[in-house]
């Protein structure tokens, strides 16, 4: 898509429309796989439903294998992909806050909006909480700014900074994924079933 846009086969003005279409498709898939339910989302922490873990792990593994095959065949250049910049402490603190919110609310921001769309009350409260959080952050931005913009490491990846071989990394990563699925399944069988 980036290729189509940067070579102006699709003009830049279409960016928002493409984004909306992709967003609608993403929301539809989330909702139809039951991710708009906070019980299903929180299940991964209580051990009765590992759908979240399985879905996101599978998505990551399939995407990375696909990308590296495309790179090998020359259809795509891995070195030219966008890498999100790393702000170490911002990422750690933000991740911790997000984790607490995830367990307490039973949603991550994307699925929260899915819940809002189908009219779940807890999702409405959850998104209201997000908005309050945004408000507090914006008001106290000057206080948070050194953490928000500091500890900048650039657009780094594990493979670059530890000089790992990407292919072995992917192989080991996919084995970890499969092992995680097996263990998750074993845990799920031992835990008392919850109906929701």
């Amino acid at each position, binding site marked *: 898509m980036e290729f189509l846009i940067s070579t102006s086969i699709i003009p830049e003005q279409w960016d928002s429309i493409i984004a909306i279409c992709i967003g609608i498709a993403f929301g539809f898939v989330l909702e139809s796989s039951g991710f708009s339910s906070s019980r299903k989302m929180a299940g991964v922490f209580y051990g009765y439903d590992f759908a979240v873990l399985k879905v996101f792990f599978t998505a990551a*593994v*399939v995407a990375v*294998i696909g990308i*590296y*095959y495309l790179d*090998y065949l020359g259809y795509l250049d891995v070195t030219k992909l*966008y890498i*999100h*910049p790393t702000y170490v402490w911002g990422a750690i603190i933000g991740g911790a806050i997000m984790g607490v919110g995830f367990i307490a609310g039973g949603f991550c921001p994307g699925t929260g909006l899915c819940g809002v769309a189908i009219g779940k009350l807890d999702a409405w409260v959850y998104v209201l909480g997000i908005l309050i959080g945004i408000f507090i952050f914006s008001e106290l931005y000057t206080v948070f700014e050194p953490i928000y913009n500091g500890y900048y490491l*650039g*657009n780094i990846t594990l493979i670059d900074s530890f000089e790992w071989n990407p*292919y*072995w990394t*992917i*192989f080991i*990563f*996919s*084995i970890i*994924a*499969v092992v995680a*699925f097996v263990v998750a399944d074993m845990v799920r069988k031992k835990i008392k079933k919850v109906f929701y």
Partner: protein
Amino acid sequence: MVKKRIAKILSFRYTMMAAILILLAGGLVLLPKYQESEGIPAEQLLSNIISLERYVSTDQISDKLISQDPSFILIDVRSEERYNSYTLPNAINIPLKKLLDKEFESYLNQDQYDVVFFSDDNFYADQAWAICNRLEYKNLHVLKGGINKWFTTIINPKKPNENMSSKAFELYTTRKAASLFYGVVYPDQTKTKSVIKKAPRKIITVKKKKKMPVEGGC
């Protein structure tokens, strides 16, 4: 019976999918690796080679020199001796052997000026052009015919025959006027000996443009 068999096979579906995933990931490890060629892709190089902008004529360069166009750098890729004996006005000497030296990189790797290579013919200049193209430098050109052509067209233009078109005569007068600019003396001028004027070599330092990181996000 068939249904039962299908059900039996399907009960292993997750195991099979996990096996496929690991096989595919293992395939990545086992695939024979090849050294990816760095620099310009072949198609791009080809399109640069057949591009009309690759060659500039001696007339164009002469025009630019006379009008003191600041948008280009002339680069003489001949040896230093040849450069010292004669060169084009304001040309910089980068012998072909030293083309990849660090000290000359700032002249070549920039996108503010047009770089024009020349040598005696365009043979060595073309080699320099190809090397710099491989390094993905921009705005590269070659002086068609090099200094030999420069002599036969600008310094010593051939007088057209009477039966040639008026355009040929126009070109001749332009070239003759240009040669006067470069200090050539014609016998029909009642001038005493004049020294061939060689413009001082100007060195233009070029700041290398910093590459900005790609912006964006999810």
